[in-house]
């Protein structure tokens, strides 16, 4: 998935539990060791890196190796124009829990921000929303089903 900050387009490709990160012609392996409120413990190219990230609207405050930068994230619209391969997309469960309700069916057109399904765990609900306009390609879960963290719930595709 490509994200654009200011003039930089950074591309992350899942690679098992890790990622491959690419910028221009550079590519490195990234492992997420831990991530808690505003802090990411990473292993980038074999080296441990702790990063602090705060988000304020489209502004991102990022501190790595003691250097702090304020980056501005480009809109997903711009992202799409920037990135070529942005068709199929999967939504994963952010936490283990039970599917409380499924609000769409396969083939439905969905709009950015629309709630696709609702997860419940420990008496709290989290609404899984569409990151952008698109179409429901595949539903991997049904109401009442228990899901693991990061289990794929639903796949979207371009309209």
């Amino acid at each position: 998935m490509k994200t654009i900050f200011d003039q930089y387009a950074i591309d992350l490709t899942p690679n098992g539990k890790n990622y491959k990160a690419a910028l221009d012609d550079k590519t490195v392996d990234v492992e997420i060791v831990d991530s808690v409120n505003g802090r990411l413990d990473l292993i980038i190219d074999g080296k441990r890196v702790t990063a602090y990230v705060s988000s304020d609207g489209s502004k991102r405050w990022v501190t790595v190796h003691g250097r702090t930068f304020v980056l501005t994230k480009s809109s997903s619209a711009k992202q799409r124009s920037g990135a070529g391969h942005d068709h199929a997309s999967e939504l994963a469960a952010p936490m283990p829990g039970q599917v409380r309700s499924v609000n769409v069916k396969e083939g439905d057109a969905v709009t950015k921000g629309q709630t696709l399904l609702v997860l419940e765990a420990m008496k709290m609900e989290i609404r899984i929303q569409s990151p952008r306009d698109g179409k429901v390609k595949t539903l991997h879960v049904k109401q009442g089903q228990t899901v693991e963290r990061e289990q794929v719930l639903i796949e979207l595709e371009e309209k």
Partner: protein
Amino acid sequence: MFSKILIANRGEIAIRIMRACKELGIQTVAVYSEADRNAPHVQFADEAILLGAPSPKESYLNIDKIINAARQTKADAIHPGYGFLSENASFAAAVDSAKLTFIGPSADSIRAMGDKAESKIRMKKAGVPTVPGAEGIESEDDFKRAAKEIGYPVLVKAAAGGGGKGMRVVEKESELREGIESARREALNAFGDERLLIEKYLPNAHHIEFQVFGDKHGNLVHLFERECSVQRRHQKIIEETPSPLLTPQLRKEMGEAAVAAAKAVAYFNAGTVEFIVDPDTMKYYFLEMNTRLQVEHPVTEFVVGLDLAQWQIRIAAGEKFPFAQKDLTQRGHAIECRVYAEDPANGFLPSTGKLLQYIEPRGPSIRVDSGFITGNEITHFYDPLLAKLIVYGENRDIAIQRMNGALKDYVVHGVITNIDFLQDVLAHDDFKNGDVSTRWVETKFNWKPAKPSFETLIAAALAEQTITNIKTQNVNSNEPDPYSPWKNPNGFRN
């Protein structure tokens, strides 16, 4: 000893003084403005009194309200901290006439040193070297004559001044009028007093000050120097002790001059005698005396091993020094970096906002004096000083190394700070060689912020993934859980 002290200040210095009070078994009273309702210095105190609106005139500069707060809480002493009313002689007098103890020098000492022109005359009398110049003149012609006599470049500065306000460097005669007029305007605004004095401007000068300390029994010592030459807009950003410039001989001479200067105004409690030193001639000149605890006092505490804030209180309570000058020594090296909410890439303009993340460095020989925590608002009402980062090391190299590591461990999100800038100053050869004058930042050090590294962009992109499809969390506010029950003092009533 006092039983309760009111601290007429805010931020890191208010907290630092309250710590000293608590360690001496003294109750503390905080005062605060409406902008500081939940400020750490208020929560740190035993009691707290609201002064009024955020504007300093309505709060931290309001003498009557502060004295009333002290009366109301039955405090028996007031500590002014630095800035605000700390060098205001009328405040010190008002505290006295309210039968409270002012923790600082006498109103007379403050008054005598507060006027740059008058103090300069006194120093000449006391045999303390002063910068060639003229005071007590008014007409442009007088200034012209004086400038010609001492030679350009010259500095015109407010007689009532301080903190770099009402100060102009004039390179040549044609610019003199404009310099005088703008300095006058600024002086009038800042101090309600447009009197100016003129002196020789030394472009490569180092700013070196001496900490002096006197008890009320006639003992007056100095606690050695602080080198404060790294400045921007005439304001210090890095201080250290010992000074890399001074020789033992010069240190001895200047220390004696500092004590003489303080004695000339019958000084007691903590004060600082500022000198400028010309590295070419190694001549030193009296600049001014700050009649209060200095922002940068912690470097002296590290190297001399005394707690200056505690001693201010003990002296005010009438204690005698148990030590003499010969008992005092410098050991190791200490550096302070002032962490400001300001943008070095944009003329050091203050940056305001909410602290989204605020994480301080820690470790052996690392000290942080700070007045803010995550979630606090940095407003435009007050000084943009976020915190002071101070380190000790066996020698200057180790202290620089330690400071660099500590700066790298500092995380501030929500306001732009000078932390990256400070790292690059410390890494610069001129700083390593101690070869930095007060104009070095403006004239020699052309700082540019670095470009974000690959790692930085990777981290930003990864964080993006984690927030793309969950909106239950107000990440912006950076309050990990805005719905925490803790935010709800009485959800259930019965």
